[in-house]
């Protein structure tokens, strides 16, 4: 286990008859950025809450920093930092008061808090706003302050539950830079998100759907290995009609709309391009282009979910 910060085996959580997390297993290497991807309700938060000792697993085992999440909660707590979905800060306290409170809550000495205070203010870009009430800060600031408070006690492992929800793109990018900094200093970062583009920043990814892990690997591995069949990006003036027509063809494996283009998975690149052109021409739909593209993580995700559910429901489950 020496190299793994987190080890999870067949971790399961049931709420009554509903299985929120279904026999999930994975390992997270020390100092890695581990991305847990999935739609809302897929089981991401439930998993993170079990790993933080906030929720008892129904079955299975998990260790965090070598501590068992069931029997060694105090050890887990000393090892981790946790930032919940809501950037949970006290809105009626000032920036400094929040930092000092959490410092005290982690049992840090006053001197330690003082030095960490300066670090958090610098990291979050909050110098000069020390006395602002937290509720007056923008979402991006709150997010960075919440991260600062979560790592005040310099934990070895940080859990970030949807840290970028509702944050503007510039702040999101800046936040990911902070995550990178943490990782470079040897801190293991476990992050959940439903933004697939953010997954590109991770070293290691798991896709979770309906409580189960459906795919895993580095972003590169996922894009090159999971989908064996070529994907053609179809550009046309009537892509919705085009999708409806192509879906019915036996030689079309998968279709999905991405913005103004249509992704069509076929068995062979050349044959596929010819067949698409002919089929659309018969309906009077002009084909502008059909180029082979590298699958995006979204393609991978949809592919895996369709594989799982036999083709139905992929659109709804799209993160």
């Amino acid at each position: 286990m020496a190299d793994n910060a987190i080890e999870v085996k067949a971790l399961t959580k049931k709420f009554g008859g509903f299985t929120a997390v279904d026999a999930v297993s994975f390992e997270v290497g020390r100092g890695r950025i581990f991305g847990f991807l999935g739609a809302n309700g897929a089981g991401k938060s439930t998993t993170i809450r079990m790993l933080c000792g906030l929720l008892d697993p129904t079955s299975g085992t998990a260790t965090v920093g070598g501590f068992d999440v069931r029997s060694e909660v105090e050890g887990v707590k000393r090892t981790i930092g946790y930032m919940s979905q809501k950037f949970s800060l006290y809105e009626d306290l000032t920036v400094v008061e929040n930092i000092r409170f959490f410092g005290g809550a982690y049992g840090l000495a006053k001197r330690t808090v003082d030095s960490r205070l300066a670090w958090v203010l610098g990291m979050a870009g909050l110098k000069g706003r020390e006395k602002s009430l937290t509720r007056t800060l923008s979402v991006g600031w709150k997010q960075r302050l919440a991260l600062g408070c979560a790592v005040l006690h310099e934990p070895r492992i940080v859990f970030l539950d949807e840290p970028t929800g509702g944050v503007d793109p510039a702040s999101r990018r800046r936040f990911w830079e902070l995550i990178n900094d943490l990782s470079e200093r040897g801190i293991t970062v476990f992050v959940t998100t439903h933004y697939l583009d953010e997954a590109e920043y991770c070293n290691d990814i798991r896709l979770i759907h309906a409580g189960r892990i459906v795919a895993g690997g580095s972003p590169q591995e996922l894009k090159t290995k999971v989908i064996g069949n070529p994907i053609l990006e179809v550009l046309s003036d009537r892509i919705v009609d085009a999708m409806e027509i192509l879906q019915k063809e036996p030689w079309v494996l998968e279709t999905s709309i991405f913005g103004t283009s249509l992704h069509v998975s076929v068995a062979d690149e050349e044959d596929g391009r010819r067949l698409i052109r002919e089929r659309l021409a018969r309906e009077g739909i002009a084909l502008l282009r059909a180029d082979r593209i590298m699958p995006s993580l979204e393609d991978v995700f949809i592919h895996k979910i369709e594989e799982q559910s036999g083709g139905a429901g992929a659109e709804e489950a799209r993160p």
Partner: protein
Amino acid sequence: MSLLALRCLRPVIKKEFRQISRDARSLMFMISLPAFMLLMFGYALNFDVKHIPLAVVDEDGSRTSRDLVDKFRTTEYFDLKAVLPKRAAIDPLMAREDIRAALVIPARFADDLLAGRSPSVQVIVDGSNAMSGTTAAGYVGAILQSYSQAITLEGLARRGFTDVSLPLAPEVRVWYNPELRSAKFLVPGLMAFILMVIVTVSTAFSIVREKERGTMDQIRVSSIRPLELVLGKMVPYVAISLGSAHLVLLLGQVLFGVGIKGSYPLLLLAMLLFLTGALGQGLLISAVTRTQQVAFLFAILTTMLPTFILSGFVFPIRNMPAAVQAVTYLVPARYFLASLRAIILKGAGIGAVWPQLLFLTGFAVLSLGVSAARLGRGDGERPRRRTGA
């Protein structure tokens, strides 16, 4: 538990004080509402019946009958509104609530008296308010009684029996509240009622708010233990509500003349025990509820009605049916109220109130213990096993 183990207590207390001081509305609510309610209840909730509007129908019109009417004119219990010629005139006045009682002195009242035939005097009372109606009837009866006695003695004296005394001369002395003023009886009750409701409601909010904002999870992954959280949230609220209780005591003294007859330290002890229990109840409510609205409803339901109705605050417990009386033993305010009245009005010492204090201690220990235990769990899940640290 050693002091070292409570090292996270201070940050929690500091944080709570800061948050309370930022929330001016809640702070005002906690400090000034009790005083405001004391004024409202103290002046409005008055069971004393004075200045009852009265009409008299004097069909006799004799000197004797006017003498009797004067008895009513000179007492502060009645305001003589009208002297009417006919009984029929009573009805409209009573209906308009211009009068609440009427006295009918029949014709030949004086003659009958002189002749030794007991004339009957009719008393009519508006019973639509049972409480004041009964009191008014009692007062009229008493005045007639004493008038009748005076006449009897006078008549006897006229016949030569000068050394007559009545066989039974009741001498009633009311202890602890000699003027039988409602305020004396109400101030201790109000303190119990106000403290119970305010303290429970405001603490009920405190943990639910953390849950709603998600800060509860943040606290649970930190080094703060449930006991530290409960104590840390309690200390500021105990301090504030004790201040509030003293304001009520002061106002009771200044406005209603209700001084503390007994020992102040004993009173303080009773207040501390009761407040701690009420706080524990508030914390428990917020530990089992998820939203502030539900917590508020819970807090109001479990404090307002029992404390108002079942504590003996307004309605005497001994007049209740046995089953309801049994329920009152579960109302903490009952014990607090009993000890407050004993200490404030009667000057009772620890020897008289210890059973009540014992019950309050039990209430405090139970409610705090249960809420700390409940907070140690997550989201209604199985209790979490803790390891040494």
